[in-house]
């Protein structure tokens, strides 16, 4: 997990010429953007001014509107989102929200359609349309990515340009232990898909910064309206996430009782186990089973 890239902040929202502080895996990290737009990041050591010791520099790149860094040695670039490069899309870094729960809990919530009618009432779901229909989940051949397809759900206001409720088809990707990308039918063009991603920065075992990115077809609304729509939804998720217990994601299959709608979550937990993830989770071997 340490050898992955993690998001730190929106490139645009990062003030020029200032050292910003955050955390990654509990460690204090600093990052900065200079007048030329060059990004730097460092591990903070003791009371030293960040950056004064060149050996503390961390690899850093900009992708999808965010600054990404790593404390390890990544074996490549960040996972691709090819749609981001399409000329007519609105690419919006929708904001960063702090949540007091493990990053994997947030990813799992992002993958769950069952909560839409109850938490995002009138927007992403509406009673009595509560059924999560059968859908497909698979891990890619190289084991790098989870893919959930043919997820159908009735949504009263699926996007910023929706004018009425519709059955919406979702595809979810989990290409990273703490990031997920979803694709949903665009109300503007039935052949194309809107892209919404959550990039989670595990600041601690039980805390995260959730960075949201949209790459959507919307020729009407301003960026701040699109941001506001996404913050509204994330604001509704936040108290639900913070009331989850335990705050780390349990990987032991019997720790929590899944239902059919949780198929993606079951595969996600197994996939994290197989990749030996121990940060922000309760590994299966450590789970205490109470009778």
């Amino acid at each position, binding site marked *: 997990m340490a050898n992955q890239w993690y998001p730190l902040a*929106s490139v645009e*929202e990062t003030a020029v010429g200032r050292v910003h502080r955050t955390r990654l895996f509990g460690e204090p990290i600093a990052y900065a953007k200079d007048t030329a737009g060059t990004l730097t990041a460092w591990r903070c050591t003791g009371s030293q001014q960040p950056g004064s010791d060149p050996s503390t520099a961390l690899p850093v790149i900009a992708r999808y509107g965010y600054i990404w860094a790593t404390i390890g040695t990544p074996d490549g670039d960040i996972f691709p989102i090819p749609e981001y490069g399409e000329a007519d899309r609105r690419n919006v870094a929708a*904001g*960063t*929200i*702090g*949540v*007091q729960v493990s990053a994997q809990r947030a990813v799992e919530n992002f993958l769950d359609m069952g909560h839409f009618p109850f938490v995002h009432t009138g927007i992403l779901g509406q009673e009595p349309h509560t059924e999560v229909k059968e859908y497909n989940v698979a891990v890619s051949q190289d084991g790098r990515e989870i893919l959930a397809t043919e997820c159908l759900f009735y949504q009263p206001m699926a996007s910023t340009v929706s004018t009425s409720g519709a059955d919406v088809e979702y595809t979810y990707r989990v290409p990273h232990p703490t990031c997920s990308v979803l694709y949903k039918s665009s109300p503007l063009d039935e052949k194309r898909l809107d892209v919404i991603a959550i990039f989670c920065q595990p600041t601690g075992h039980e805390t995260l*910064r959730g960075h949201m990115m949209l790459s959507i077809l919307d020729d009407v609304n301003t960026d*701040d*309206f699109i*941001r*506001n729509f996404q*913050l*509204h*939804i*994330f*604001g*509704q998720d*936040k*108290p639900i996430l*913070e*009331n989850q217990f335990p705050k780390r994601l349990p990987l032991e299959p019997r720790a929590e009782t899944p239902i059919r709608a949780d198929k993606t979550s079951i595969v996600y937990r197994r996939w994290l186990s197989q990749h030996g993830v121990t940060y922000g989770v309760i590994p299966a071997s450590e789970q205490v089973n109470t009778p």
Partner: protein
Amino acid sequence: MIRLFDFDLSGNCYKVRLLLAFLGLEYEKTNIDYYPGRQHRTDAFLRINPLGQLPVIEDGDYRLRDAQAILVYLAHKYDHGGNWYPTDNPDLIGEISQWLAFADQLTTTASAARLESAMFFELDGDAARAGAHKLFRILDAHLWFREDAGADWICSADEPTIADIACFPYVALSEEGGVSREDYPAIRRWLDRVKRIPGFCVMPGVFPAGPAV
């Protein structure tokens, strides 16, 4: 038509939306991207409110800032029943004003804690949380004695007043700033009573109450 300069995740803007909903008033919203856009610090908004704070309302040519002041104005002008802000009783006006000032202190404590932990404002979160607990203890004891006297609301009136609206949002959102309400049972009961007032509306982070038992 009334215009509200609004930010969706702001508890102070939510106060105004709540009263407008209780009064059944139509209004238009102008979204100010307070976070992450920090539009409240732009020249354009500072011309509307030099303090750079939300909310602001415009009612015709009249412009007013400050959540508590807006509640007083709207209730006095549009609540024809007069229950939200009764003006015929000096004691009650004094009491309401006292709790409106208390609501302002909730903004500098419970709200500040939430801005620090959810939106990374550079504020002293621990001091804000300690301050919020101090206020919550006072409010909880006050509400407990009110309940003991058979009363439901913050001020000495049979109906809720704008003091209940002003204190509600940052108490209801406190857990987002790491301020637990576990130790304040009278506050928790009062929050549910506010949620059951006809016309109540939610915001992200605030859920409706279940049916009364």
